[in-house]
């Protein structure tokens, strides 16, 4: 096979893949609980309603710009959409009663109410902007504590439902796309290295989920004995190193094993352009490949940001909102395949 693509001609292969094409987004969350109240798992519905009311009052006083939703008042589709946008967890969707969410329309901050803890204050930022995500969450936390009595002790810090979060209650996480390392069979070594450095590595959906599409969530394990700046700084530095390794992997793929990469892209694009039924997980695998292709300049008429939008739009809740109807799983797979076929119809490989 003669490659029309000259790896040396691509500016991307010199290492210019922007950080945010590898580190997709980051989040800092603070777990907080109210003094004298049972944690949500052991609380009665009345207890949870009381906590919800107290938190809403604090939000009204300090952060009126946030939109507050009671999950019990949301229909299933609205809950799914919030979950797919990563504003709330699957755990909170399942709890529903007494659960709630408050979020900024720009997606910079969000508070989950009555999830595993009474409050989970989250700051979000694109790429590696973990410091910005922390600032956003911390500022909201400082505002809310004027109105709420947090469970806190000098020795253990913020008391949480699970002792694994006690102390700062802070979890700093970054979502990283590591398909390059996967194609070189190096991702396991990187994951093992991260775990040895006491970082948690999970799939895209958080705890217990598979790393579908080779998108991993990397976060700190320790929340006690180190302060917030220390945690955020350490996770940021380690994520930056992972980004560097993935960037190197992509350069090596293009230079040393272009056929492996192009084969992966060609198969993925063929399926996306021809399939009539696509489940979420398999669509994510193929979109992940196109994301890598767009990032190294091997795919035309498609940008990394376009793929990121498609990854959200092809989720079950978003698909049903586009269609304006409840769809069963088979109907969704058909609609997903049709939508993706149209969106990638003009995409070509640069080979």
């Amino acid at each position: 096979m003669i490659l029309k693509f000259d790896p040396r001609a691509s500016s991307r292969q010199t290492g210019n893949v922007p950080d945010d094409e590898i580190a997709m987004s980051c989040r800092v969350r603070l777990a907080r609980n109210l003094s004298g109240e049972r944690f949500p798992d052991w609380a009665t519905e009345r207890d949870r309603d009381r906590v919800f009311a107290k938190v809403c009052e604090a939000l009204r006083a300090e952060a009126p710009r946030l939109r507050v939703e009671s999950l019990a008042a949301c229909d299933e589709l609205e809950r799914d959409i919030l979950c797919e946008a990563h504003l709330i967890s699957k755990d909170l969707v399942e709890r529903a009663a007494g659960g709630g969410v408050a979020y900024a329309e720009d997606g910079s901050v969000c508070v989950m109410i009555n999830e595993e803890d009474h409050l989970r204050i989250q700051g979000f930022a694109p790429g590696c902007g973990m410091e910005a995500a922390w600032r956003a969450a911390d500022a909201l936390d400082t505002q809310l504590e004027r109105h709420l009595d947090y469970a806190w002790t000098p020795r253990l810090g913020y008391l949480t439902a699970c002792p694994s979060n006690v102390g700062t209650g802070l979890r700093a996480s970054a979502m990283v796309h590591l398909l390059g390392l996967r194609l070189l069979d190096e991702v396991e070594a990187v994951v093992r290295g991260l775990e040895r450095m006491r970082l948690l590595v999970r799939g895209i959906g958080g705890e217990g989920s598979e790393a579908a599409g080779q998108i991993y969530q990397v976060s700190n394990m320790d929340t006690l004995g180190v302060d917030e700046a220390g945690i955020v700084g350490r996770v940021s530095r380690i994520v930056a190193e992972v980004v560097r390794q993935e960037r190197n992997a992509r350069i090596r793929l293009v230079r040393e094993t272009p056929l492996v990469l192009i084969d992966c892209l060609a198969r993925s694009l063929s399926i996306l352009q021809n399939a009539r039924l696509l489940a979420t997980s398999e669509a994510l695998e193929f979109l992940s490949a196109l994301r890598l292709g767009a990032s190294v300049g091997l795919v035309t008429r498609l940008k990394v940001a376009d793929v990121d939008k498609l990854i959200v739009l092809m989720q079950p809740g978003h698909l049903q909102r586009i269609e304006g109807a409840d769809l069963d799983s088979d109907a969704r797979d058909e609609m997903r395949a049709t939508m993706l076929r149209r969106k990638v119809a003009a995409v070509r490989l640069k080979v």
Partner: protein
Amino acid sequence: MKCELCHKAEAETAIRKVVDGEEQELYVCRTCAKADVEEGKPRTETAPSSSDDVSPLSALPLMGMILDAAFEIVGRAAATQAEPSCPVCGITRAEYRKASRLGCPACYEAFANELDGAILDMHRSRQHVGKVPAKAHAARRRQQLVDELDAAVKGQRYEEAIALRDRLRKLDESGDRTEAGGPA
């Protein structure tokens, strides 16, 4: 927790009892525990125990008194060991272990003995060094000044003590709004 036999009184001790051919551990109240012991011993009417002229029936109240006394010493300790629980939310150790989630903030105190080791294993630390809520920060700062004042008085460093007293007064009059731990 209610007695697992009468379901009325609070359980105070654990007994082992054969139910449907299977030995089970039951948490029971004092009355049911006593009834169980009496049920298990030989029937006094049919089992004269000695050649003493004391009627076997007259030993029953004595047995009751001994049981009561033993109950106070052993029974409560056994109940505590068997099923420690949080005095605020009532969650038992077995319950929180099963769910891997504590019941309320007070559980950290109630289960401190076993949580201490678990927390050290999880975080390699036992001491919070991060953010302090503004309200707690003010209280902590005041306590620090009180401790320093106490030490200065004991050490007869009176000038330092006067300065500390004045700082305490000022703090009490103005309140403290200092916050700490946020991003710089």
